[in-house]
């Protein structure tokens, strides 16, 4: 379904207010979730603290599967934040979307390529930053000419491809899911019969979208660590 986007121009920059809203909401939810579940910390964890510790261990395992903990430990917080933020973002558009006067206000922030590509660029940028910081500019630069010097252009293309695929994979999955949801909701659910007919596929697709959203957040976190490991570890 096509809806207008609430775009305003401020200081010469275009702002999609829906994105601004949803980014803020997603960030707020992640923040509240994390802070509320870690408000009463105990040596013997209970309830939400257990869950958060599980998330931490989960991300820790992802990092450990790609690089040494002594290199990757510093990315732990980045990883947890990424996986939580993207998961919550993916979930936001599932239960409903809000359209006011033809303008789409409530959706997944990750259903916008600008948002996902921003995150992807941030990750790839960080990988270059840490590559230089942890291995030195020389070792970092030589990495582009391995195993053969003529691989250099391919390596350069690879960096851009990484960025694009990392961002667009997430965007594509989530956006497609939302398109289908809004098709089912708006296109089919007209009248009683249509609503009844749409209910079951809607349910199925929402369940599948939860799965896809979880998998995509995991993949994003995993690839983040893989790209970082590529630049940070010396044994590649």
């Amino acid at each position: 379904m096509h809806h207008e986007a609430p775009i305003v121009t401020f200081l010469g920059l275009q702002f999609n207010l829906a994105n601004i809203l949803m980014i803020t909401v997603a960030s707020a939810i992640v923040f509240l979730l994390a802070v509320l579940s870690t408000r009463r910390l105990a040596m013997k964890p209970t309830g939400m603290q257990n869950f958060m510790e599980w998330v931490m261990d989960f991300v820790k395992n992802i990092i450990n599967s790609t690089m040494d903990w002594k290199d990757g430990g510093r990315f732990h917080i980045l990883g947890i934040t990424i996986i939580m933020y993207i998961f919550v973002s993916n979930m936001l558009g599932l239960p409903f979307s809000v359209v006011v006067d033809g303008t789409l206000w409530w959706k997944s922030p990750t259903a916008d390529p600008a948002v996902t590509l921003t995150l992807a660029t941030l990750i790839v940028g960080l990988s270059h930053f840490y590559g230089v910081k942890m291995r030195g500019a020389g070792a970092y630069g030589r990495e582009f000419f391995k195993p053969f010097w003529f691989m250099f252009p391919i390596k350069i293309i690879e960096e851009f491809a990484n960025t694009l695929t990392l961002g667009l994979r997430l965007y594509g999955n989530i956006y497609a899911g939302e398109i289908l949801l809004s098709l089912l909701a708006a296109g089919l659910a007209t009248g009683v019969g249509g609503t009844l007919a749409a209910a079951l596929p809607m349910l199925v697709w929402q369940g599948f979208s939860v799965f896809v959203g979880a998998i995509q957040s995991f993949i994003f976190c995993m690839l983040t660590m893989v790209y970082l490991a590529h630049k940070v570890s010396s044994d590649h």
Partner: protein
Amino acid sequence: MKGVNPLVVTNSLVLGAAAAHTGVNWGDIIFQLVMFIILMVLLKIFAWGPLMGIMKQREDHVAGEISAAEQSRVEAKKLLEEQRSLLKEARSEAQVLIENAKKQGDIQREEIIAVARTEAERIKESAKLEIEQQKEKAVSAIREQVASLSVLIASKVIEKELNAADQDKLINEYIQEAGDQR
């Protein structure tokens, strides 16, 4: 849950919200970037930091407990060894004490028996001596009695004069005879 979509459905399936306008939402991009960094920093301060702290603390606690347990195990082993050796010592000491007591008892018994034996010997000796003396006394008393009696009897029965020498001789003969008969 149904999509909240009260509005007219258009059939134009245009890909992406970006297609509705031209240009890039640089504002969104910057906002997302800033928001994400702020979120990460806030979470680090308010959530992940403390959570990691407590996890580290627990890790340390567990490690400490394990090493403490190890240490107390070693200590217990040492104490056990010590107690065992002490027990052994006490046992051997007791053995020695019993041995000594036994020896002491044997010596004492020997002593007591010896003393009793000598005492008995002494009592026997003195009893023998007494008997001998009594016998001597009795014999001399009888001798006297017999002498006077025989004199009396002789003088009365025979009524014949005898001198003292003959009389003594006669008495001694009689006594000799009496001693032989005994």
